[in-house]
């Protein structure tokens, strides 16, 4: 699934532009995504100080994936989201190194702003080149990093564990990228009802898959 593989790829991309980052022991730390031993501000200041190269790796690890998720949402496929994550994190590290980030405690907002600007620029360039991806292209690129067969089997089993209607709504939402309104129109349900079922279905799937991040919300509103 998207995740560790993407993070490694993002890190590799950034590391290629900053060869000094690649040194013994650093890579394994980079892969411990969302390491939260330091606050965002402390991490940014450590990069500005320049004393600890691992801080740069930790910053890429912590925020690269968020930029990737932002890119998936706004650019529509993994390849472009990955490029965005690499470009944004490269630019952010450069700005930190040169002391251009004035509010390190707000590094998250700074990265988001950079991501927005670069995503906008990407879209503008693509429009100009008439290269806007089709739905088919998105579909193909979504499988650039195949999900492990064992995970597919587990998730297929979990999908069998939710109700017929929940399963259909999850598939129509994720695979077909249909909104609650569109699904409601297709199945004769109100959009609000679709959202409730979708929420409940995803919470149940998460529980069946042992996805801890989503387990604290098991009841739909």
């Amino acid at each position: 699934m998207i995740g560790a593989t993407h993070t490694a790829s993002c890190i590799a991309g950034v590391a290629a532009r900053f060869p000094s980052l690649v040194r013994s022991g650093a890579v394994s730390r980079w892969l411990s995504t969302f390491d939260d031993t330091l606050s965002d501000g402390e991490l940014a200041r450590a990069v500005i100080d320049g004393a600890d190269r691992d801080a740069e790796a930790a910053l890429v690890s912590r925020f690269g994936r968020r930029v990737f998720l932002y890119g998936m949402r706004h650019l529509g496929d993994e390849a472009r989201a990955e490029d965005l994550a690499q470009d944004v994190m490269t630019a952010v590290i450069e700005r930190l190194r040169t002391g251009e980030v004035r509010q390190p405690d707000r590094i998250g907002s700074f990265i988001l702003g950079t991501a927005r600007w670069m995503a906008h620029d990407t879209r503008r360039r693509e429009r100009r080149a008439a290269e806007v991806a089709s739905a088919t292209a998105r579909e193909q690129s979504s499988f650039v990093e195949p999900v492990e067969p064992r995970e597919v089997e587990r998730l297929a089993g979990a999908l069998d564990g939710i109700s017929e209607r929940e399963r259909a709504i999850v598939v129509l939402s994720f695979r077909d990228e249909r909104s609650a309104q569109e699904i409601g129109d297709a199945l004769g349900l109100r959009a609000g009802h679709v959202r409730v079922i979708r929420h409940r279905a995803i919470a149940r799937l998460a529980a069946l898959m042992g996805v801890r991040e989503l387990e604290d919300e098991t009841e739909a509103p």
Partner: protein
Amino acid sequence: MTVGLEELIRYWQGELPPEREAEVEEALFEDMATARRLEAIARLDAGVRAVVSAGALRSGLTVQAVEGLEQAGLRIRTYQIDPGQIVPCSIAEEDLVVIRLRGDFANVERVDVGMEGQLEGVGPMSERYDDAPVDRRAGEIVLVYPGDRIRALPRSQFRYTVTSGDRQLGEFRLDHTPAS
């Protein structure tokens, strides 16, 4: 502040108004728990796509969704059945088999589907699909099965019974012969 699951799902699906979307994105970059949650949703999304792509899906869907799967390159064998009809069926190399039950389902609040099978050399089997999704535009119940599951069947007969409460809306039969 950590964004709730419901709102994050709506963000991921592109359903939030722009101002709220911007607020969720601020939280994504300021709050680690929000980032973790969105990551989990993205993983589920990718996983569901992979299940479908692997031909491992058993679900009710819509005609439009099945057409989308075909356009994405999945090999699909489809059988349309009218009430009372017996349709011979089989499978070769297809990824998915789609059974389209046609009937007067469009204006029914809820339908349940019972499936009873008689498998040669194995015996009887049954499944229930309670509150099955109905494609309102097509007026059909569209059932998707993994190709591997159908390929494993011996010669067999299946009867689908569609009901709404106590009312029977239709009975549909399939006569399955394994590929030689």
